């Protein structure tokens, strides 16, 4: 009986030590937690140049599920959407129909800018929530910075855009812009 009690207390003590060490290890591991705002700020500084350098000419027929950096010029057709998610349709081939849809936010969907930039991968983050938050900070600020430029573009005007998108399937692709400028 006494031996059993000693055994139990030994096990308990051993158990305690083990947990303490592991708690410490876990805290040390989570101490390496990433600075998401800092990483997003760094991404935003690099973004306009990096996307412009990677950009290829827009192909309205393009298909696939891989993100692309893109450069497109065309005629602004219309700005639509409510207060939360405005978008501008663009005709790139002169047939009068929309070939691309520019997201103007404030709510921006997808992770095209993060993925086209590609400087940070999922492996740089502790969780999907952090990785998504990083994408969202990039979206909010990058699109926020072009919104005023977009307001200056009237329907019918020529526009030059650099951004990123995933071609996907049906319908005009949704492009997340990093620069919007009037075109000659």
């Amino acid at each position, binding site marked *: 009986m006494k031996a059993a009690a000693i055994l139990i207390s030994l096990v308990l003590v051993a158990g305690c030590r*083990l*947990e303490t060490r*592991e*708690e410490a*290890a*876990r805290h040390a*591991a*989570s101490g*390496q937690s990433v600075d998401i705002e800092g990483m997003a700020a760094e991404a935003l500084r690099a973004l306009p140049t990096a996307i412009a350098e990677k950009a290829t000419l827009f192909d309205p027929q393009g298909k696939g*599920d891989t993100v692309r950096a893109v450069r497109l010029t065309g005629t602004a057709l219309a700005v639509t*959407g*409510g*207060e*939360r*998610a405005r978008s501008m349709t663009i005709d790139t081939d002169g047939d009068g129909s929309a070939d691309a849809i520019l997201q103007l936010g404030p*709510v921006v*969907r*997808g*992770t095209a800018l993060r993925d086209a930039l590609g400087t940070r*991968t*999922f*492996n740089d*983050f*502790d*969780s*999907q*929530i952090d*990785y*998504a938050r990083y*994408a*969202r900070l990039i979206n909010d600020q990058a699109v926020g910075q072009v919104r005023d430029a977009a307001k200056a573009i009237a329907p019918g005007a020529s526009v030059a855009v650099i951004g990123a998108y995933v071609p996907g399937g049906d319908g005009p692709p949704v492009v997340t812009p990093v620069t919007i400028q009037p075109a000659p």
Partner: protein
Amino acid sequence: MIARRTFLGMLGAVPLVAACSPDADSGGGIIAIIMPPYDNPFFRAQAVAARDRAVALGYEPLMLVHDDDASKQSEMIDTAIARGAKAIILDNAGAAATVAAVRRAKLAGVPSFLIDRELNVRGVAVSQIVSNNYQGAQIGAQAFVDAMAEKGSYAELVGREADTNAAIRSQGFHAIIDQYPAMKQVARQSANWSQTEAYAKMESMLQANPQIKGVIAGNDTMAMGAWAALKAAGRTDVIVVGFDGSDDVRQSILSGGIRATVLQPASLQARMAVEQADTYLRTGSTGMPEKQLIDCILIVPGNAERLHDFDMRA
């Protein structure tokens, strides 16, 4: 006590073990495959895919079920270590509670390969292969908004709070739905991934909000529970969208019930985890980053026929 709980956990795995009859002479050694309960077909599909791949690569699978109980999971990891397992394939019982156990296995020389649910730290597991829940939730939410014609009252059923995937899916849903001012969320409740709980929650949400036009659910078992409650209430007009890509929901989609779901390629992830374990055991490296995201696929009537056991057939 420990022995009995482990035994009980293994009981749930009996049909799987009986079906596989691993080659006792295989030189590969034991791979422990530790999963949440098989009553959710998602976890069963993962277990089957991992087991089959392990057998094909010459390992002896040790099938264990932790029942979403972190202390049971901890005992099972100890069992795997004591049995001399070469590797552990794990869909964990909660990120925070799992780190210590996986670290203990690592210190004992048993590498872990996680699927489905991630840990919130790096450097403890060798691989963490998870669905791109944020991307998947966004495509599911877009299908939901389209089916709702961009307007109306809706309810959200959320998964288990302790599970990272519950939060990330909800964030993904709202990243899309909140873009549409005419979409009004009138109720939001957790049904803990459970079909029976979702049935009860749906009943009460429907009574409080009879104007509900749509329900978006964080997984397919909750979508099935909600759909059953809606059917019982004669409200099959309500639009339901799920997440997982189960065969049950596929059947419902094909018969005009649930509108859409999002396939998490569960079987693919389970196979990848076993293959990476094998590569790691043979070469000392998987050749892959620890954290890996696998994109999800929208399942609608047009492609639902191809969905079987959480895999898209050609």
